[in-house]
Every structure is written in C-alpha cells, then in structure tokens.
C-alpha cells in the first residue's frame, strides 16, 4: 500500500500485518501455557483469559476498525460488555 497511514484515519496495511503476526504469536503462547508449563490452575486461567481478551481487543480495534469509529459508536459497543460480565458473575455466585 502506497500510503502507510491510510485515509480517513483507518488502519494501514502495515498495521493489519502487525496485528496478524501478534495474533499468531499470542495463539502459540496460549497453546504452550497448558501443554508446556506447569503453572497453578488459577494462574493459568488468568493468563489465558488475559491473552484471549488481548487478542479479541486487537481484532475489534483494528480489523473491525473500532479504534477509528466515532466516539458514540465506541460507547455503544462498550455498553453491553459490563452487562455480559454481570450475567455470568451473578449466576456464578449461586452455587
């Protein structure tokens, strides 16, 4: 791509490739954690969930262009996420 920083504030092809490599590397790290390392289970879960959220964030911000969208749309997307967490945590405390 000629212009490294793309038009209209969107991501560049270079950024897309950096995200791609990051996702691939993070996936390899994820697979190694339960198979090659002997972390305590809780620590393993925390690391794996953190890595997954990191990858999800990369996809949303760059591939779905959320980083470059109007602020109103960003808030609309963020709004249900706490509700999703509440949905799980509220029921999780039931047993």
């Amino acid at each position: 791509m000629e212009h490294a920083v793309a038009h209209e504030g969107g991501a560049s092809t270079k950024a897309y490739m950096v995200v791609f490599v990051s996702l691939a590397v993070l996936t390899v790290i994820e697979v190694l954690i339960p198979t090659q390392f002997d972390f305590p289970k809780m620590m393993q879960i925390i690391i794996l969930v953190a890595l997954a959220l990191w990858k999800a964030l990369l996809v949303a911000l760059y591939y779905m262009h959320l980083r470059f969208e109007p602020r109103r749309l960003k808030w609309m997307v963020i709004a249900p996420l706490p509700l999703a967490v509440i949905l799980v945590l509220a029921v999780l405390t039931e047993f």
Partner: protein
Amino acid sequence: MTTNAAVLDRGGMDATEVGMGVYNMKLGMWVFLLSEVMFFTSLIGSYIILRAAHPEMFAQPGEVLAVNLTAFNTFLLICSSVTMVLAFAAIERGDQAKLKMWLVFTALIGMGFLGVQVYEYIELSSHGFVPSVEGYEAAGAPLYGSTFYTMTGFHGFHVFVGVLALWYLVIQAFRGKYTANDHGAVEITGLYWHFVDLVWIILFTIVYLI
C-alpha cells in the same frame, strides 16, 4: 452539513440523518453483533457455571480434545481475518482485482475451517464423544459433550453463514459491483466475519485450553 456528509460517506452509503456518524447498514450490523455478544455470553456463561459446579465432568486440556488441530484451525481463522481486511483495504483504494483475490482467499480459508471442524466432529464422535445424556464415559459425564457441541456448533454455524455471505460478495465483486465509493457490503460482511473470529478466540481459550 458538509462535514456530516463526509463522515457518513465512508462506506459509500447514503444516509438521511447523522445519528451515530456511521451509515445505517454499519450501525445495523453493530447492533446485531452486540445482540450476538449477549447470545454467546449466555452460552459461554452457562458453560463456565456448569463446569465450575461439576468440575469432575470435564476433561483437562488435550485429554479429549485435540489442541494442536484446533490451534491450526484458530490460525486458519486468523488468516481469513487478515485476508478479509486486505480485501476491504483493496476496495477502499478502488483495486477490484485485489478485492476479488482476497475475498476468494477468505471464503476458501473459511471453508477450510469448517472442513477441519467437521473432521474434528467425526473423529470425536467416532471415539464416543457425543452430545448425549448417556455421556462420555472417559470424560466422566454428559455435560462435557453437550456444552462442547452446543458452543462450537453455534460458532460453526456462524462461520457457515459467513462463508455464504463471502461467496455472495465474490459473485458481486466479479460483476464489478463494488467501487472505492460504494463498498458498504464488503465492510459490514467484514465486521461480521471478524466478529466470528473474535468469538472463536474466546471459545478456543475457554473450551480447549482451560
């Protein structure tokens, strides 16, 4: 008004009012995807709760499910996300040849993902891992199979729908329907496709690695 028109023009779609500052089809897709967030949250949430309540009914990573095979499938989906975004970048520049090429790649890789998943299902079920109340003896109980097939099945169905949408885009792209100023369909299909990838990132961790 000029500013608003410029903002709204991003996907080349007409819009009658400013609203969120994006064209209506894109806003619609985002709202739909947010409803999907809640749908998959309920599935994943149920899984977490069932597993926390009955840990003995679930196997450890790699005991039943093939982590390496699925890691490869995860990689396939990541590849299809980058090809999708390259297709979008191509048509933003007005490059129809690259658009067609990357769309075909994306659709083919998506089919590859489904192929691996079907293979995985056949392998697992041939070893007795089925969504049955009889349960899977080696893993201990019925919950494991039921939750596994429900979550991965619904995700696979989403990929299937995405592949259909991608082939539709391919056909339209070969008809020269998309241009630098009119490619909203490519963008919103891309949003859906990346979301399906995003869900898989979470599912892969929750179902296969933890």
